[in-house]
């Protein structure tokens, strides 16, 4: 088992003082190498859920065990370390660093873990079809190309788990299809499990294992 979640809860206090439970997931599991899609509408807590798994947010209650380590009991710096070594993250808005080249953006994905390996970064960019764009900066790339850089970066640290948050949300139909194909193939090639959240039915249709976050999230 790669990821095991029990009784996970996360709430926010609204400006008027009301407590809003965003995530309340009694149980969730993901096997190593498994590719799972979570269907979730806007406001369903999917980004918060992924951030809890990544250790970016601290849960109010519950337990997350990732690759044998209990994320919820780790200190912040230990969670940072675990994230740097174990998780790749693909964002809807790509979140590439504008001042850095494509190659540097991918290399940054390794720098806080095992250390930068520019040869591997280059191979990953070649794998996603950007071998001739290594020294381009994000604003010099199309949105489809930017998302491919983001995919390469997510795989840079040889993660066991790739979290993809609406990875095709900002792409047109053709680019979305292409990006999804690359994410899934690259995860398979690298032996990484994929947990993808989307509200796009066309994206979800490609997955054998689709779970409705609205149903598993008992908020």
């Amino acid at each position, binding site marked *: 088992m790669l990821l095991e979640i029990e009784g996970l809860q996360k709430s926010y206090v609204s400006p008027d003082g009301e407590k809003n439970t*965003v995530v309340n997931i009694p149980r969730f599991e993901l096997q190593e190498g498994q590719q799972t899609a979570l269907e*979730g509408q*806007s*406001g*369903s*807590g*999917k*980004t*918060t859920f992924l*951030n809890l798994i*990544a250790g*970016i*947010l601290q849960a109010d209650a519950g337990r997350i065990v990732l690759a044998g380590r209990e994320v919820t009991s780790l200190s*912040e*710096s230990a969670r*940072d*370390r675990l*994230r*740097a*070594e174990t998780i790749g*993250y693909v*964002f*809807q*808005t790509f*979140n*590439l*660093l*504008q*001042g*850095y080249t494509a190659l*540097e953006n991918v*290399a*940054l*994905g390794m*720098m*806080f*873990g095992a*250390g*930068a390996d520019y040869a591997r970064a280059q191979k990953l960019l070649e794998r996603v079809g950007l071998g001739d764009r290594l020294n381009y900066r994000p604003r010099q790339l199309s949105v489809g190309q930017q998302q491919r850089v983001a995919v390469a*970066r997510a795989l840079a*640290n040889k993660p066991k788990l790739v979290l993809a*948050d609406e990875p095709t949300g900002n792409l047109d139909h053709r680019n979305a299809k292409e990006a999804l194909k690359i994410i899934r193939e690259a995860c398979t090639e690298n032996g990484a499990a994929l947990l993808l959240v989307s509200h796009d039915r066309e994206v979800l249709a490609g997955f054998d294992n689709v779970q409705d976050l609205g149903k598993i999230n008992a908020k």
Partner: protein
Amino acid sequence: MNGIVLIVRRSLRQHALSTLVTILSVALATGLVMSVFCVRDQAHDAFTGGAIGFDAVLGARGSSLQLVLNTVFHLETSPGNISWAMYQAVKKDARVKLAVPYAVGDNLRGFRIVGTTAEIFTEFEYQEGKKLTPESGRIFVESKPAEELKREGVLGSYVAQKLGLKVGDSFKPFHGLYFDEKNQHEEVFTIVGILAPTNTPNDRVIWIPIDCMYRMKGHVFRERKDAPKEGTNPISGQKVIEHEPVAGEDIPEEFKEVSAVMIKFKNPDTAGMSMSQHINIQGKEATLAWPIARTMDDLFNKIGWIDKILELISYLVVMVSAGSILASIYNTMNERRREFAILRALGARRGTVFGAIVAEAAAIAGLGSLAGYLVHGTILTGAAYVIRKNTGVVLDVFQFHPVLWLAPLGMTLIGALSGIAPALKAYGTDVASNLTPVS
């Protein structure tokens, strides 16, 4: 570590303009601090313990400082004259190793003409083992009274360079210590030697035989009625009778005067003390400036407040440049919150982001400090030029001073400290809220 280096490099490049301006302000601050210390200490050393070569100066009663400035640094006016007999008495004093007479009062286009004896070339050492040696030509010949007077001059290197004179050229002196073209003497002197550079005030002097100084038309001798016997008081209670030298005849010693006698003692400590006691305390007619270094040191102590003000100004510039580092980085913090959040999402720890900002501030200060060497070199070169032009004292632009590593190191540390405030802001960046809208 690689991550921090990359983050710093990219940030400096992304904010190139503000980085450049900040680097320039740091360069100015560091260069100013280095220059103030180097110029102050080098000038102090040059004026108090540099290549002076003599232990004491004997001159007319008055200010020791004026005497030293006039004779050693060839600045200021002469406080007056002392008798030839006093010079002779000092020369024969068992405690004295070398006594060289100076007679001043003329110039060549603003450069001092000093009448003296050939001992200034043959005996005097401005530094141990270093004499005033002609680089071209020879030293002057002192004519005997019965011979035809040879009017010869030996030029210091700076004079020759500035006036474009060479061996074989001739010149007519101008009367007075300050150049006035209406006051030109008739006598024509031939340049027989150009001295090798010494990097001392001697480079700014034209040396002529003292007899030639006496025998220039218009130089009138004044007999003192109680013209002294050797070892007696030479200057008191005078009745002045004017006298002009006659060609081919010896000038009677009672008419001769010198502006000063430059003295080198056999044993400077004991001899200087006892002669100073004799002349300055018991005597009333002359002043012995001894030791020369202490006289100049007194001057530096009196004007030490100028150094303090310059130091203070340079420290203030350091503080302002530290503030500019803080402001230039702090102002980018809002636009960089997303960058920090992304870095954190990639696994960068809070400490890494904090360290990157401190390193960025230190890098700006470090680069500014490196550029500070250029500022320092420029200021020191300018200061050295002005000081040499006005005093003949040469500062060494490349001379090492501890401030040359302390100032850049200190500035880099101050720069790093000034990065702490923005680094704390980066440290506190919330990852989730700065990545993407929460859905």
